[in-house]
Structure formats: C-alpha cells, structure tokens
C-alpha cells in the first residue's frame, strides 16, 4: 500500500532571544489510508508544531524545511492557492483549543456550510441538508435546531463535536487531530475517540492523533511515534511498543502511568524534566535523565534506525532497554 502522507526530514525552527531553536528536528513518519497514528510526547516536545508545519501554518519568523508528500505532491512547496484547497479539504485539522478555532460570532451551521461551499460543489439547499447530517453524524442531539446556535452555547464536548463536524464537511482523506479530548471528561473523551474511529472506518480516512495520554494511544491508535525534545525517538505498532519499548524514554513514560493492582507502590518515574529548546544537551537529548546512559550517549546523537520490520528507535543501547522489560506487561 502507498502511504497517504509521507513526512520526511521535517525541521521547524523559531527565532528566540537565545537565537534559533529547533522545535521539530528531522522528523519523519508516514500514515497509511485508514490508519490511526498516535504522536505521543510531553508538553513542549513538538507535537503541535509538527502538525502545524505539515499544513504550513507556521508563520515567519518560523521556518519549515523537509518535505511533506501528499498524494505525490509536496505540501511544503506547492503554491499557496493549491494548498488552500488541500487544507480544510482533503486534509482536515482539529485544534487543541476548540474555542480558538471556531468563529464566536457565527452560528455553527453557517460555519459548516462555509466549509462545504469552499470544498464541495453542493448548492445552497444541499449544503443545509448536509450540515444537518454532519451534526447528526457527530452525535449532537436535535441537530436541526442547534445549527442556529453559537459556539458558546455548546458544552466543551459538544464544541469538540462541532469542530469535528466542520472538519468532516469536506470529506477529508486525512484528519490531523491535536489533543482532541485533553480538555474533556473521560466519558466524553470515550465518546469522541470512538466517534473518530467510526468515521475512520466509514470514510477510510487516515488519522494523526496527537496526545500525551498513553491510555488514549493504547485504546485508539494502530501505530505510534514517541517524540522527545523535537525528535521522534521510537516508532512501531502500538502493541509492539507497549510490549517491548526499545527507547529508555518510552519505557520511562510507560512506567510513569499508574496501573491497577500495584496500589501505593512507587512508580517508575523519570528524574528531572524535559530540556528547554535553547538548552538541549549534546548527544542523546535524553541522556541527563536516562539510567541507561553511557559516554557515547553524551557525545553522539543516536539516529532513528530500523531494528526490526516496522520498528524504529534512536537509542545507542536499545537492546539493553528492551531487555529490561516493559513496565506494562
């Protein structure tokens, strides 16, 4: 199968008081049609910047290098006019903060119809009907009446559904979802994640799901990529990575999440905190926090390399890490 999306050597830099910093450093991954890829990492690891870079939503003085292949074309170099058709059309995005992405002074029905008129050939009547269908599809009760409501009249969970309805209006082939459930309660999170999976099945749409919650990854994603300090440090199928993490950071993250049955015992925590972008340590950026680190880790940056089919890791001592066992099995 040919990947729907192919990201290669994506590097995004920002100018700050401390000079240029790389928020995303040489990131690469692909998404197959109908596949859900989880992009995991702690806050500041570069997840949102990665998504924004893919859709060229990073503004000057930020710079984006690398390539993002979408159906044979590079999103990073295509003319702005063509890009606008893809963005919000074939590729839809749900943002971390629904309120900032919705227009507060327009009824949600109009916002859905706007997207329909930008990306479909439907006439006015058809658009109104389709808007109602979409609200139904995302599980908003009394859809027809609520089309006239403004964003602030919806609860957090409902607003997130409205965002999804707008995103889906164009019938996208790829959905980029940035922490779509982080601000929501678990019962609503569960509803939204299962909705995204149902829509994936129905539309054969690829999904990149950004999250910091490993439970969400375990419950929804097919493959995962773990980010640390702007780089991808490990990728593989979710089942494989959980069963046998090969990067010390992945292993530490899995161990930091409390599991049932081990009540009131100490968690396998990671000492220290993630580095700031202006002070990323030389060698492996995780080395000051890593219990497996040796001299080479402080000198040489490990490259992301395939060690088994579909499994990549950037760690000098990944065999030792794997041998130490998964904290979640």
């Amino acid at each position, binding site marked *: 199968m040919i990947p729907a999306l192919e990201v290669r050597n994506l590097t995004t830099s920002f100018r700050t008081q401390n000079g240029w910093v790389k928020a995303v450093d040489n990131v690469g991954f692909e998404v197959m049609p109908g596949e859900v890829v989880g992009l995991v990492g702690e806050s500041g690891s570069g997840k949102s910047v990665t998504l924004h870079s893919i859709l060229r939503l990073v503004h000057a003085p930020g710079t984006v290098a690398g390539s993002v292949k979408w159906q044979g074309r590079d999103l990073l170099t295509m003319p702005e006019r063509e890009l606008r058709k893809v963005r919000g059309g074939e590729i839809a995005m749900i943002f971390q903060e629904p309120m900032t992405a919705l227009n507060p002074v327009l009824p949600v029905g109009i916002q859905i119809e706007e997207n329909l008129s930008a990306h479909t050939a439907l006439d006015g009547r058809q658009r109104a009907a389709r808007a109602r269908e979409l609200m139904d599809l995302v599980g908003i009760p009394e859809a027809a009446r609520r089309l006239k409501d403004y964003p602030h009249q919806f609860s957090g969970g409902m607003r997130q559904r409205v965002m999804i309805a707008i995103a889906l209006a164009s019938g996208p082939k790829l959905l980029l979802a940035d922490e779509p459930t982080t601000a929501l309660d678990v019962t609503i999170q*569960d509803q939204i994640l299962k909705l995204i999976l149902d829509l994936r099945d129905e539309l054969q749409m690829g999904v990149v799901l950004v999250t910091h919650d490993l439970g969400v990854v375990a419950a929804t994603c097919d493959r995962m990529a773990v980010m640390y300090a702007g780089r991808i440090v490990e990728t593989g199928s979710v089942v494989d990575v959980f069963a046998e993490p090969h990067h010390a950071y992945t292993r530490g993250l899995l161990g*930091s999440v*409390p599991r049932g049955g081990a009540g009131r015992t100490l968690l396998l*925590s990671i000492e220290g*905190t993630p580095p700031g972008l202006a002070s990323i340590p030389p060698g492996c950026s995780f080395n000051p926090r890593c219990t497996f680190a040796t001299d080479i880790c402080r000198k040489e940056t490990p490259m992301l390399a395939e060690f088994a089919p579909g499994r990549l890791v950037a760690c000098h001592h990944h065999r030792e890490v794997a041998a130490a066992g998964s904290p979640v099995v």
Partner: protein
Amino acid sequence: MNAALSQTLIAAEEVSKEFHIPHGLWRRLTGQPRLAVHALNGVSFQINRGETLGIVGESGCGKSTLARCLVRLFDCDDGRVRFEGEDIADLKGADRRAFNRRVQMIFQDPYSSLNPRMRVREILGEALAVHKMRPRAQIPARIAELLDLVRLPSDAADKFPHEFSGGQRQRIGIARALAVEPDVLVADELVSALDVSVQAQVVNLLLQLQEQLNLTVVFVAHDLRLVRHISHRVAVMYLGKIVEIGPTEALFSAPRHPYTKALLDAAPELDPTKRTRTVAARGELPSPINLPKGCLFNTRCPHAFDRCFAERPLLSDRTPAHKAACHLTDFGAPSLQNLEAIS
C-alpha cells in the same frame, strides 16, 4: 486494619453548598426565583487517621467545592464538617488557629498559588512564622530541612517561583503545607497540570512523605488511574453527591453503582490488546442548576426504571465498608456476576 487507621479524624455530615447566580433583571421583574448552582447536595463520609481518601468525578461534580468545605475555605450552607468530633464552624480563637494549622490544602494550580514576588525562603518562612512553628534563629535550618524533605536543592531557597518547573513548584507548595506540621493534607488536583513523567515523581514523593509523617490525605483528582494508585478508599461523586464509596480495590474491581461502572469503562485501558468499540456512557452531565428529579444519574443510566425518576436513592451499605446510592442494590454484586457466569 490497625486501630490507628480506623479512627475517624474528619467527618462530613450532609454537607450542602449552593452558589447563587446573579439575579437577572428580567427574572427579578417577572418574579422568578433566584437561580443557584447546587454544587454539593448532602455529602457524608468519614476519613480515618493515616488513610488516603481519593475523591473522583467529572468536571463540575463538586470535588473542589467539597475540598474547600473540608478546610473551611467555604462554610457549608447545610450540614457540617467535624474534625476530631467538633463542628469546624464552631471553632474559635486558638482552636480555630490550631485547625487552620493541622489541616492544610494544596491547590490545583501550582502557578497561581505561590506569590510570584516572594523567594522560596520567604514563602516557607512566612508559613513558619504565622503559626510560630520555630524560634526565629531556627528558621533557616528548618527551611533547609523542608527543601530536603521535598527533594529540592538547597539553593532553591533563594529563587522565585517562576524559576522552577511545574513539578518543582508543586513541591514548593507541598513544602509550604508541611512547614506547619499538619495532620491532614487536602490535595486538589495536585499533579493534574504536570507532565506524566513529572506526575510520577510527585506521586512518589507524596507516598513517601505520608509514610514518614503519618499524614492523612484527601486526594481529589479526575484521573482514575492516579486515584486508584494512591488511595486506600475512594469516593465517586456525581452532581454534588457521593454515589459510591468503598475500599479502592473493591470499588475498582466490582463497582456497585452504574455511574462508577461507566466512568471506569470510559477510562482507556493501558493495554492495547484489550480494546473495545462500545461507548461506555451516553449523554452529558445535566445542568447543576436544574437537578433531575429522583436519581441524579437517571438521564444517562442504562438501567433506569420507574422508581429512579420518582425517588432519590440514598447511600446504603453493600458490604460494611462499601456503600452505593442506587435503587438496584444488587448492581455489580460479585455473587450475582458468578451466577450469571454459571447460567
């Protein structure tokens, strides 16, 4: 359970709390009653000395309001909170000051609960001075001891809150609470704002301090995994009421209230081989302004029947230590589950 553990330290008795909504002109002119958010609707439970009671529930169910009532940052509208048997609303003078010292609250937001213009030395020094914990000459040594206790480097004393990471700031909050040598810590979403790897550090610290200092802890959080990990007993809240309370493992392995079950089912499993595609709970929380009649969960409960719409279920014993508020007293009963498995 030993004798020290089973001794009641704090008791909430039918605690209720409302927040009035500004009375709009139109409602006033048309003679309609004032609206109120019913944040707590008769909450009762006990906390034993040395134990950790976890309080879970979804956003807006009243967890923070309850925590504030326990430390008397809010007065209850109805009912009372007892500390060592005494109604805390009646405490005066020295007794009130002793209560304020012995029961400490740590807040949800590590960024806003520390004065940004004070150095850590001043933050801790102030706490020590207010309750006259140490003679002036011993204060610097005590500050060093406290920083060591929460595993911060000693040079932290001369820094300002903004010079620390979120996890470190939360440790400063813990050090400030511990400065006055309390018996009880009420921690409201202590680690919710922190990254996963840093959460684990703070949770480990809390577990160790509790053993070391024999603290009683009320751990308020919406994260079920965390609460399960840290608590001896857990109370589940829904719309300002406790719907279930019991020993942690009993409650998590065999929930006796349909809402608890839905909440547990909705939390994603950490095991990717145990996936389900069924939605755990339909619908959303009703408004706390117009509470449903009868059982508060009846708008979402898949098991609701006639009685649930007429009569509000009371919290009653399932086992001597495990209570639930549901008309289906057999719901989730382990014996019944076995029967179903056999038939």
